[in-house]
């Protein structure tokens, strides 16, 4: 009976499983932090036992004045010198990790700009910047250097399974490296409260084999294939969507919202929160603020019927 309570512990640990699990060992940086975590956890447990043991021992023992000098020395070494050295060592260790995971070098560079409440993602390539949004793809076993900025308020960039987190601060650039070691779709999120839809500011971090990643990035760099007079693009243009959104290869060059050039190739809609389906897309356009409260994009409730269908079909064709 007494031990049955421990049997429930795994239920609590279940909260740490899944794609947001920072103990998943999916990234080198997360592993380094995890190493520090275990040392801290086990070390703290051992020290706790020693301190409590010493206290109990001291309580039970008869007072022996002849040992006072020894006891004072024990307090100085055990109570002042040892903790200082230990905490100092841990600080240096932590700072070394911090230095390493914010190193200004990587196999590829990705700029991420925190917006309310989504992520502007820019891959730096030898042929120029490749702009996308709300989904980050990375090659396995390569170190990606993230240059992080924010436009409006402080956000925080975190892919728990891979590493981080790092604050994104308006007017400054912060850095973070991620070296994924396991392929898969790992979840990312904003870890600093940034206003109404903060909890819905997410993204997919998809780790791919090197060759797959390169093919994906090459495709992402291509402009969209939009036929002249595409009926869905006509709706897009007439509704003024291009005032905020860019679709490379068309006249739409708005700088405000997410780049939509390869929108439908993303797994999720609305910054990592909805499946990319035509139904969700239609709702996103017409009931925007029910889908994600407070966001800057205005809803288009008067779009319906064939016009909406054409627009959704067009957007879902942007792969």
């Amino acid at each position: 009976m007494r031990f049955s309570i421990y049997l429930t512990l795994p239920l609590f640990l279940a909260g740490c499983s899944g794609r947001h699990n920072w103990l998943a060992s999916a990234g080198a940086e997360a592993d380094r932090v995890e190493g520090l975590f275990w040392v801290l956890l086990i070390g703290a447990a051992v020290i706790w036992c020693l301190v409590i043991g010493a206290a109990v021992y001291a309580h039970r023992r008869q007072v022996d004045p002849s040992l006072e000098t020894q006891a004072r020395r024990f307090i100085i070494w055990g109570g002042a010198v040892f903790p200082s050295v230990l905490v100092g060592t841990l600080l240096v260790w932590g700072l070394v990790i911090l230095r390493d995971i914010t190193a200004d070098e990587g196999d590829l560079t990705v700029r991420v700009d925190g917006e309310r409440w989504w992520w502007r993602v820019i891959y730096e390539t030898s042929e120029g910047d490749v702009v996308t949004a709300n989904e980050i793809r990375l090659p396995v076993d390569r170190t990606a250097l993230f240059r992080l900025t924010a436009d409006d308020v402080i956000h925080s960039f975190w892919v728990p399974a891979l590493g981080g987190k790092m604050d994104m601060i308006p007017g400054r650039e912060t850095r973070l490296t991620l070296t994924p070691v396991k392929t898969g779709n790992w979840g990312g999120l904003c870890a600093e409260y940034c206003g109404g839809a903060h909890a819905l500011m997410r993204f997919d971090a998809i780790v791919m084999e090197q060759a797959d990643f390169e093919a994906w990035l090459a495709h992402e760099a291509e402009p969209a294939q939009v036929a002249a007079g595409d009926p869905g693009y006509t709706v897009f243009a007439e509704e003024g969507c291009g005032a905020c959104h860019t679709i490379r290869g068309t006249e739409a060059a708005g700088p405000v919202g997410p780049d939509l050039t390869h929108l439908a190739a993303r797994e999720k809609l609305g910054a990592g929160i909805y499946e990319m389906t035509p139904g969700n897309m239609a709702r996103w356009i017409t009931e925007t603020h029910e889908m994600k409260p407070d966001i800057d994009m205005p809803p288009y409730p008067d779009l319906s019927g064939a016009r909406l269908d054409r627009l959704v079909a067009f957007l879902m064709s942007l792969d």
Partner: protein
Amino acid sequence: MRRYILGALAAVALAGGAFYFVAPYNIAASVPHLPGVANVLHGYLGNAVAVRARSVEIPPHVDLENPGLIRLGAGHFATGCLTCHGGPGIDRNPVAQGMRPAPPKLTSEDFDAKEFWWIARHGFKYTGMPAWPGKSRDDEPWAMAAFLARYDSFDRAGFEEAAFGRAGVYEPEGVPFGAAPAPIPQEVTCARCHGEDGLGRDGTAPKLAGQSGAWLARVLGAYSAGHRESGFMEPVAAPLGDEAIGRIAARYAGMDATWRGTPFPLGDAERGEELATQGSEHDDIASCVSCHGSGAEGPKRDDTPKIAGQDGYWLVNWLHMYRDGPVPETPRAHLMAAAARTLSDSDIHDLAAYFSRGP
């Protein structure tokens, strides 16, 4: 002791009740105030205006010397003020003179421009002086301030010319209430501010000529139904039915759409062009031309207004309206509100400088 207090309170309550029900104080407008009362009330009114006008600031884009603004004030004066206050060389309506206080003949001496703005914006309780009909439009009463500050320089012909575009429109010496007995034709009512050619009489009112009929009908309908606030437009649009709205919209839509640009004295047109055509990533500003079109090509939808060549004064007022309210309650107004939300005052001036340059 306590008994005396209770007794006194009961006596006061009894007296108050008696006063309330027997109503001995005569509130008849036909009977003058008791000696001194009118002076105290009027003095208090002056103080109340002076105190509140002290914190009023003239917006940077408002030029009280602007003849267009003065004409607009004169035009609205004819709509809303003339009947009670009379005008330069025009008598007050005898009905209004039976009010107490009787609406005074006005003079520029009475108040300064900020005080005139405050009075036009807020009106006076207990006097019959109404507040501004577009109840959140802080920008509009500046036209009244501009006109009233110049009021004494107008004679009757000058006033009629300013207010109606031509002298001799008002025949009766005593101004009528409502439309009777000599209604001004609708064409004159619109044209007196927007011009016979729909080009706004050199900055008196927005240019309408060649604007999309669907847009004009939507806006006029919104003014008529109280879905878009304006102290200028709501009173003249309120009586219009769908048929009249359609006819007026079609008439202005059919006019020559050549809008000459008028320079706007504030703002940086180059930066405005950049904002209007490209938007701003950092400041989350959407490009204007994606919906409104640039100079050469018009708006993409016919329920979107053309703005290239419109007077900067109106562009500034409208952008303030969409940014700070009152946002019109029309189907797509929230799109414009979303676009205006991130604009700073200087962005607005820059955009007005760019678009007012014309196509």
